């Protein structure tokens, strides 16, 4: 049970995909104009990630290691097309907003990254917990970034008007450069928070770029590493 919780919860903070692993940045930058878009994209990713982890883990003993990447991609691509069709059928306005970024989930490195680094080496229940945790972490990150950009750029949150008439929208935030700036600020905030946490535990702070696995739990979760 505790192992299950550990695999689930690591995606929520320790290995938070866009902010800690800094993976899957294409949708993070592209679709977070509004909180709703970010949330919708996140839901699509949860669906694909959890099911692809489930299938990859189920098939892991069957798949020959030489063609494993091709197999993982076929699984992920099929799931993404399913999501695309379902989204068109049941949430067409959201599909119009996300457009090309739905099919691009196939090449999102989180999907392949989790399949390769985790699902192909672990039993089914842990793989699903990992996929759900990572997916939910991804959704929260996208919604957070979308909220920041929407509030500053449009003065609204999930379409609700938060500010009064006096508010002059800071449209830079919903343009492409605003995505980079906003992501940078969030990353800086995350790093400061991590260092503060480490200091309060009596560990040394991390300065500058790190080239070992100190900040990332991905390697530690591999058996035998």
């Amino acid at each position: 049970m505790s192992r299950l919780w550990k695999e689930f919860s690591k995606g929520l903070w320790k290995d938070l995909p866009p902010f800690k692993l800094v993976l899957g940045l294409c949708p993070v930058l592209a679709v977070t104009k509004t909180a709703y878009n970010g949330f919708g994209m996140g839901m699509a990713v949860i669906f694909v990630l959890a099911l692809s982890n489930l299938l990859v883990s189920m098939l892991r003993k069957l798949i020959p290691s030489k063609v494993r990447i091709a197999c993982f991609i076929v699984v992920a691509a099929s799931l993404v097309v399913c999501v695309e069709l379902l989204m068109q059928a049941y949430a067409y306005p959201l599909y119009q907003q996300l457009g090309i970024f739905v099919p691009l989930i196939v090449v999102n490195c989180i999907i392949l990254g989790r399949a390769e680094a985790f699902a192909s080496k672990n039993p089914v229940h842990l793989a699903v917990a990992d996929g759900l945790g990572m997916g939910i972490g991804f959704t929260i990150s996208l919604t957070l970034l979308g909220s920041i950009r929407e509030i500053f750029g449009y003065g609204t949150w999930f379409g609700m008007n938060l500010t009064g008439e006096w508010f002059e929208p800071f449209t830079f935030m919903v343009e492409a450069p605003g995505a980079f700036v906003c992501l940078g600020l969030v990353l800086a905030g995350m790093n400061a928070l991590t260092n503060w946490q480490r200091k309060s535990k009596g560990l040394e702070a991390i300065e500058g770029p790190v080239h070992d696995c100190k900040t990332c739990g991905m390697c530690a979760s591999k058996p035998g590493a």
Partner: protein
Amino acid sequence: MREMLRMILVLSLICGLSGLTLASVRQATNERIEEQVLTFVQGPSLEQIFSDYDNNPVKDRKTFDLPSGPITVFPALKNGKLTGVAFETFGKGYGGDIGVMVGFDIDGSKLEGVGITTLKETPGLGARVVEPEYRDQFKGHSTASIALKKQGGDIQAISGATISSTGTVAAVNDAVKIFNQIKDKLPTAWGS
């Protein structure tokens, strides 16, 4: 050799299964997607065209066969009586085809109006064909002769966007031709 066969077998099996899954998901959602596309792409333009109707034109649509291919016709009904029809035609624009929904009065003497469905024109120039200032020139216009001013008609083109203006006028004229082909079938099609 055995390993190679295994690789081929497993990969083909996975691909085959995904193909099967996708085909069935597509089959299951196909009808609904068609409806959704019509509601969100064609639907808003129908609202711009018709003002007085009490049915759902997207739901009541019917397809007519023409020599040039099938055409989907959206009816406007009031108390069960057909008051107008609309359908979509395409004209050549500057950035691709412009989709124009053209609405007709039931006897075909004048236009109910036009709405733009798909558009890839330059913002600020060609994209201004969606603005009421341009579109409203077609409202109530006779179907007899529709042309831009410089072609001898009375439609004022958008300055700096001759191609987009010509494209929409051509699409409307196409629609008039199609309307004349299906005119006789219309009164009986919706059972009134």
